[in-house]
């Protein structure tokens, strides 16, 4: 039929561009990962080299730590913010607009501004904590091995929790009013409403948002790269930065490609299991 092909003609240009920019590079990564710099087939040698490097497992666990911890706090804070903004109070619209700002600003701006605030000598955060005696001496937040990762996670949480708030708030506002009314007839107080109505009703939104946060977390190079470049002593090296360094600092494209393949495979597995995990219980309920 004519209709068949017309539809395809409409979608084709966009699909060609995407195939060129996504499918082709992916296939090319696979090819690069099993070749040497002259293009000869070398089997799994690049993978062996990459896996033997001490930085690789370290970067892997750093990535898990960074993404995992970020998401936990992003979801908790974001949902709490959404429940707050779902209340009727004067100035709610303004508070809501302001809350979204951290998410809209460029990641690099967030990185530089927080780096300045966390500055060891002249940073406002050390001052705010030393002045009332919370800490005795200024802390080198971004140079100390034990504080640098939590600080970067905090910055990442600050940057992304508004996204959770926006999405969960939209979910909360679409909850039909009679659910609340039924609960009130049963004498439910506010916290019971939160627990038994709001949270269950926005579960699917939170699930979808979490998946996006996982993907974005795996992509989030900007903040870490701009502040520490993976240091000190690889303490904040995450796999995307390791790939970047391998390719553009060490100019080992083939090893970088091998690492990309591993990274991609792990990401796919995580996403796959996550989707399975969250789909099975709700599928049974329906």
């Amino acid at each position, binding site marked *: 039929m004519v209709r068949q092909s017309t539809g395809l003609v409409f979608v084709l240009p966009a699909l060609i561009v*995407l195939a060129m920019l*996504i499918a082709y590079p992916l296939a090319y990564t696979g090819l690069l990962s099993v070749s040497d710099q002259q293009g000869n087939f070398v089997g799994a040698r690049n993978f062996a080299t990459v896996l033997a490097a001490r930085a690789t497992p370290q970067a892997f666990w750093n990535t898990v730590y960074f993404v995992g911890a970020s998401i936990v706090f992003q979801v908790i804070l974001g949902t709490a913010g959404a429940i707050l903004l779902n209340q009727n109070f004067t100035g709610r619209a303004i508070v809501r607009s302001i809350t979204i700002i951290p998410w*809209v600003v460029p990641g690099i701006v967030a990185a530089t*501004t927080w780096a300045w605030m966390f500055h060891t000598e002249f940073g406002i955060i050390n001052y705010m904590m030393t002045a009332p005696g919370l800490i005795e001496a200024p802390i080198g937040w971004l140079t100390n091995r034990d504080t640098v990762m939590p600080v970067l996670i905090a910055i990442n949480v600050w940057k992304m929790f508004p996204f959770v708030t926006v999405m969960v708030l939209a979910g909360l506002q679409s909850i039909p009013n009679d659910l609340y009314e039924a609960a009130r007839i049963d004498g439910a107080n506010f916290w019971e409403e939160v627990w038994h109505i709001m949270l269950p009703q926005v579960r699917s939104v939170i699930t979808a948002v979490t998946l996006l946060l996982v993907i974005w977390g795996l992509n989030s190079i900007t903040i870490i790269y701009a502040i520490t470049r993976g240091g000190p002593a690889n303490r904040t090296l995450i796999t995307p930065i390791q*790939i970047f360094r391998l390719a553009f600092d060490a100019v080992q*494209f083939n090893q970088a*490609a091998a690492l990309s393949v591993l990274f991609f495979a792990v990401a796919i597995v995580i996403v796959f299991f996550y989707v399975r995990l969250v789909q099975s219980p709700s599928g049974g309920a329906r």
Partner: protein
Amino acid sequence: MNTQVNTPTRTGMPLPIIVIGAILLVLISLFPFIWMAISSIKTLGELYTIPPSWWPAAPTLDNYYTVLFKSNIPRYFLNSVIISVGATGLALILAIFASYGFARFEFRGKAALQSFVLVGQLMPTAAIIVPLFITLRVLGLVNTFWGLILVYMIITLPLSVWMLTSYFRAIPVELEEAAIVDGASRLEVLFRITLPLSTPGIIAVLVYAFVTTWNEFIFALCFATDSSVKTLPIGLAEFSTEFNTDWGAVMAASLVMTLPIALLFLTMQKLFVGGLTAGATKG
């Protein structure tokens, strides 16, 4: 509003918690920007005093002078505008046709193609930096505006298609059918009826695509290494080393970079948030 009419005994969050929560939320979200603005009008001496002063004793615009007249930032600003506008426009054109195809036609493999578009959105970009770089180098597109504009399609196109498809679906098909009966072609229908009716969706897509490309860092870092095409985020990142981290100037440059995004967002906020959350609440 209507909840109060329906249920006078509305339970709600206790007022003190609302007040404290709202104040905390505003402070946490806004404080870095306030500190950025304050730092940007401090003199060099005042930036490096212990303890830091809350308000500059002698406010100065020197940092802005440095940023606007003694650095590459204006050039990078222009590059960013060109690349963001180009990538946004190109993504919109492609997305309009693709979304219309997905929303109004049935064809073989449609579901698979739609998931392919979504997968594009979900892919870790770090995994394709290397082959993209090599591809761009072969095509001679490294360090060109076209290179970055094309690469940004990866980020902007999938979500644009996704958002617009749901907008087009919401438009009653009867309107289009009436026009077709009157002898209009498919393209006429798209441009005369469907597009004007989905203006809010198109603006949401434009704002989303512009903001993401304006903020993008990693691709720009890899594919634009020459100062003739570098974008603002890269400029800001190198500013800290170029001037041995002149924090006052860095803060001024940050403010210059944030301002267009903040203004765009605050004016378009309703459409932007509406377009973004439309898919989430339907599903």
